[in-house]
């Protein structure tokens, strides 16, 4: 008997005879009626967490904003279309991710009620780009703001079908492990900036 078969047999034995009272999966309740998510709500939630938000009417404004923030310092940028459109893409390497001051990537979704950003690793976006540099800049199309987790999972019911990794990031990396004092930027970035672009089709 393999350890697998042994473990499953032990579990089945523990469960006892089949046919319990909870035959059916609890149904998902209908989504609550929520007010349409707005970028303004996201911005408010995100700022409470210690994040910084800029608005850009179009790609050119987004590029100018990023330029101003980066101010000539080192950066690593992802090959996501919106980042490329801003003219910031660089080749990926672990070494570059580990040494760059900024990581610049797109965000796939933003959650208005919690101020979270959602990153899938599809379309060639690195995991480490939002993790190793001390300052992360995420570029977000305005219509990617959804109300919250329920809408995220309605839009992406099977994250695993799209990518090996989906991460929901809610604010800068933080810890309270030393006397419950809040410190930002433990292992991930201590600073997170979002550029919300109103219309990516215009320049």
């Amino acid at each position, binding site marked *: 008997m393999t350890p697998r078969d042994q473990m499953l047999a032990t579990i089945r034995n523990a469960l006892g005879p089949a046919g319990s009272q909870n035959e059916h999966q609890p149904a998902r309740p209908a989504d609550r009626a929520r007010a349409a998510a707005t970028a303004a709500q996201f911005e408010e939630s995100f700022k409470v967490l210690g994040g910084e938000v800029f608005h850009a009417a179009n790609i050119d404004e987004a590029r100018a904003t990023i330029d101003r923030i980066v101010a000539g310092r080192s950066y690593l940028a992802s090959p996501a279309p919106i980042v490329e459109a801003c003219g910031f893409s660089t080749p990926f390497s*672990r070494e570059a991710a580990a040494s760059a001051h900024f990581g610049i990537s797109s965000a796939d979704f933003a959650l208005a009620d919690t101020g979270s950003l959602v990153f899938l690793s599809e379309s060639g976006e690195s995991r480490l780009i939002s993790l190793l540099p001390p300052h992360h800049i995420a570029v977000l199309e305005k219509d990617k703001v959804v109300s919250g*987790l329920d809408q995220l*999972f309605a839009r992406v019911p099977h994250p*695993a079908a799209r990518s090996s990794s989906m991460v929901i990031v809610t604010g800068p990396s933080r810890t*309270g492990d030393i006397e419950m004092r809040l410190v930002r930027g433990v292992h991930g970035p201590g600073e997170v900036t979002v550029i919300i672009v109103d219309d990516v089709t215009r320049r």
Partner: protein
Amino acid sequence: MKFVQIQEALGDARLQNAIYSATARMAEGRRIRVAEMPDEFQELRQRAHDIKQHTLDHIDEYLEELERNVVARGGHVIWANTGKEASDFIVDLARQRGVNLIVKSKSMTSEEIHLNDALESNGIETVETDLGEYIIQLAHEKPYHIIAPALHKTIGQVTEILQAPADSTAEQLTALARAKLREKFLQAGIGITGANFLIADSGAVVVVENEGNARLSSSAPRIHIALAGFEKVIPRAQDLEVFLRVLARSATGQKLSVYTSFLAGPRREGEPDGPDEFYLVLLDNGRSRVLADRNKRHSLACIRCGACLNHCPVYRKIGGYSYPWVYSGPIGKILTPHFIDAPWLPFASSLCGACAEVCPVKIDIPKILLELREEAPKSRAEKLAMRMFAWVMTHPRIYEKFSWVRRMKKLPAAGPLKAWLEQRDLPDLPQRSFREQWRDRR
């Protein structure tokens, strides 16, 4: 019994204050979040409870579904009946791959099976990367609290442990640890994480954290191993909404923790980073004994938020080291007796019920404590005393004869009463009992 640790905790005023204020802060954070959505929060708790109950009752099917989907995503599932099977697999894999440095993110399950000892004794350097766990590892101690492992350490003690300059601030100490651990992340051949949830329909593990160390442990090294008790499985990715919404609110009073990583297998084509190999180690190690006990099965629904610890007046006095196993607080009291011999543990509760009131998956901890008390071995003297009690209480004439007790000025300070009287005085009782007064009135 851990009486020495209890006495130490009670006698240390600084520690008392540290435990009390840290737990109060987390409890206050929870209170504020729940107050924002009182009715919805209760609905979420009920749904979380129902999903867990359903899953536990059909867990064999969900584990097989999980395995199929992990394999479909290019990962591997290792079924470990015991802690030794789990740590043997990890040690062997590290050897086969020539790995001599492993980074770990916080995992109570790995504490449970003494994984670090197994790795270190095989010459494999193993580094805890959660700041609190790192401090505890350097101090050669155990986590003090499920989600705040170094809760009992002062900033001065942390400064010493990290060998930092005197008067370092929390920011400076954190930066120091960040720099040291960053090197380890980039050099390690294996990253080990726990898992908050296993998603059957996705073949995914979900890891929730605030620092980014679990995200790094699962993304930077070439191999990612997730170690989880089998009870962590839930059916669908969509069920996460419910659990994520109660987890961080219950734990620290955040709406969501900073990083929620949903990880399905190794990196795929076109993905620039992520592990080349992914292993999920599913651990039993005695969990099936809890599963077999229908009345206590729901103990396995725990999502390790720590809310029951923060609200427990006993934990807040005796602290994390007074419990005999890795899981402390109320949840530790109901899990531990299934795993190690600790018959006294279920009695170390005033049954105040604060834990059940806050549990995000509605585990009825006081009820389970009562059942464990019933099953606990009892002394002959106590059994006799309880039989006497029942006999007196069902014989009112005899019961009335005991009213002389009230007229004693002092009770003999002997036996269990002696310890009791060291803490408090007895109340002055009226000279005449209610029933005597009542009789006089008629």
